[in-house]
C-alpha cells in the first residue's frame, strides 16, 4: 500500500493518482525528497531549552565540525554566517552551505532547504524549515520554524541522515 501525500488515503501499489482525492501520488522526480515512513511516528516532545550557563560556554564559537557516520565523512564549517542545510538544486539556484546531496540526502529524506544552523548571542542554534521529514535533535523532533540551541556533541538527524556536531 502507498499513502497519498494529500489525503493520507491508502492506495494500491502502482497507483498513479489517489483513488480518493485524485492527487498525483507517485513522485518520480529522482531529485525529490523521499518521504520516510517513520517521519510521522515520532511525535515526542522537543528537548527542554538548555540552561543559560550551558549556553554561555559555547559563546564565541567560530567553527563547527560535522561528522556523518554513514559515509565516514568529516567537515569543518564556519558559523560566522548562516549555514543552510539541504540539497543543491541548480534549477532554482539553491546551493546550501551544508549540501547533503552526496551523502544520499534525497534518498534519506533531506529536503532541499531543510534547516539552518547559525550562531546567536548565546551560542549556536538550529531551525527546522518545515522540512518534509523533520529534524531530530538527540532523538527529539524539533517543532518547525523554531530556533533550538545546539551543544557540543549533539546528534542531529535530517530525515534519516544522522550526523554529529562538534564545536571547535
Amino acid at each position, binding site marked *: 500500500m502507498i499513502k497519498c501525500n494529500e489525503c493520507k488515503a491508502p492506495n494500491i*501499489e502502482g*497507483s*498513479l493518482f489517489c*483513488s480518493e482525492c485524485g492527487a498525483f501520488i507517485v513522485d518520480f522526480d529522482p531529485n525529490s525528497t523521499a518521504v520516510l515512513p517513520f517521519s510521522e511516528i515520532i511525535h515526542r516532545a522537543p528537548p527542554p531549552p538548555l540552561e543559560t550557563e550551558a549556553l554561555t560556554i559555547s559563546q564565541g564559537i567560530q567553527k563547527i565540525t560535522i561528522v556523518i557516520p554513514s559515509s565516514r565523512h568529516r567537515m569543518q564549517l564556519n558559523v560566522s554566517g548562516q549555514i543552510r542545510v539541504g540539497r543543491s538544486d541548480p534549477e532554482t539556484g539553491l546551493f546550501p552551505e551544508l549540501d547533503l546531496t552526496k551523502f544520499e540526502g534525497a534518498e534519506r529524506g533531506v529536503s532541499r532547504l531543510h534547516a539552518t544552523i547559525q550562531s546567536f548571542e548565546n551560542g549556536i542554534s538550529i531551525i527546522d524549515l518545515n522540512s518534509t521529514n523533520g529534524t531530530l535533535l538527540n532523538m527529539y523532533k524539533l517543532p518547525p520554524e523554531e530556533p533550538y540551541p545546539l551543544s557540543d556533541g549533539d546528534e542531529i538527524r535530517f530525515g534519516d541522515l544522522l550526523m554529529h556536531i562538534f564545536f571547535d
Partner: protein
Amino acid sequence: MTGQFDYYAILGVKKDASIDEIKEAFITLRTKIPKANQNPNKNKKYKRILNAFEVLSDAQRRSIYDSLLVETDETSLEVKIQSSRQQIPLTDSPQLIYLLIDLIPPSQQATQKVEQLPLNLCLVIDRSTSMKGERLDHVKNAVDMIVEKMTTQDILSIISFSDRAEVVVPSESVQDKMAIRSKVRSVFPSGGTEIFQGLNAGYKEMIQHDLKGYTNHLILLTDGHTYGDAPQCLELAEKAAQNNIGFSAFGIGAEWNDKFLDELVSPSGGQSGFIESPENVIEFLQEKIKGLGQLYGKNFCLINEFPKSVKIENAFKLQPFAQPIDSNNKTIKLGDIEERAPMSILLELRIEAQPIETRINIPFSFDGIIPKQSSQTRVLKKSYQIMVMLDPISEKPPEDIVSAVRNLSMYRMNEKVQEEIEAGNVDMATTRMRYLSTRLLQAGEAQLAHQAHNEAERIANMGTLSDEGKKRLKYGTRALLAQTSSLESHD
C-alpha cells in the same frame, strides 16, 4: 519483415498456410538441392530453408514468430504498447500497472488508396413530445446535412419513434435526396419514448441488405428515458453487434439515461455522447459520419487471454473517441478503427501478489476485419512482458500514460460521487466533488472546475446533483480522456 528472415516468403507459402502445406513446400524446396549440398553449415541457402521450416513447423515457435511479424509488417496495423512500469517489485499484495495500447493503421503513403465500403446507415430519431420545437428542428437540419454527404452507393433508412415506430425513409440507396428531405420534414412530435420500438424497426430495415459489403451503423438520437424496454434494447444491441452493425447513441438535453446509452453502444464498441444544446446536433453527427466514412478496420476486439494473475480492472478507449469499454467478457469489444486516426486504449491491470522474481507474459490478441484486405477476420498477436524483480528500477512513467490516467482518475471521481449520492453518503460525495473541482482547476479546466464547485455546494445543501451538472461533468471529464492521446492523426 524482408529478406532472409521472412520465413513465409522463403518457403513460398501464405501466412495462413497449414502445417501440411508448409511441410510440402519444404520438401519441394529440399528436393531441388542435391543431397550432397544438404548441409546447413556449408550451404547458406539450405540453412535458410531449414531455419524457416523449423520455425514454421513448430506451432509454438511459429506463434512467437507471427507475433514479431505484427510489429514490422508495414502494410499491417501496428500495435504499440506503453506501460507505466516495465519492472515491478516483489509484493505480498496486489499492485496496479497501466498500459496504453495504440493500434495504428498503416500510413496513407504505404497503402494504396482503396475505395471505402459504402455506408448502410440508419437514423433512429426520437419524436416524443419533449422533442418539440428547437430539438426536432435541429435534428431535421442535421439529417439534411447527412443526406447531402451520402452518395448513391450508400444506403440510408430513417425511423422516427415515440410509443411506436414509423419508417420515415425505408432502407434504400440514396437517390432522390429531395424526396428524403421532404419526408423528414413531415416528422411531427407527439407521444412518449419507447426506444426499443425505434431500434427494432431500424434494425429490420438494415438487415434487408447484405451487411458484409457495407459499413453498417445505427445512430440513435433521443432526449428521454425509455420505460421498461431497456433489457430488450440491450439484447438487440448485442444481436446487432454480432451481425456487424454498430450502434451509436446521442442524448439531447439532460433528461436521458446516460448509463443505459453507454450500455447500448458497448457491444459494438460504438459511441455515446451528450448533446448539450440542440444546435450542436449537426456537429456531433458530422463528426460521427466522417469517422464512419473512413474506416480502416471493423469490429475490433481484444481477446482476453491474460494469465490468471493479471486482471483488467478498467478499460477505456481514448481514441478515436473517449468511451468506457466493458472488460467483463473474454472478448472485449473495441469498435472500429478509423483510417486516419489510431485507436488508443488505456488498461488498468491488477497484478496479483508476486512473491518471487519472475517474468509475466501478457499476450495480446486483437481480431477484427480489415475490409481492404479481406472479408475474413484477421488476428494480430503481440505480447508484453513485465519483469517482477527484487529491486526494480524506478522509472518515470511515460507522459502519455500519466496524463491519460490523470484524466481517467477525474472521470472516475465523478462516477464515485454519483455512487456515493445513490448510497446516501452525502458528506463523502461533497468532499470528493470538492476534490474533483480542485483537480480540474489544476488541470486547467476552469469551466468544469467551476461546474464541479457548484455541484459540490448543491450536494452539500440538497444531497443531489443537478441534471445538467451531472451530464456536463460526466461527458466533460470523459472528453478530457480523448485529448490525452499522444498520437496525432495523420491528416
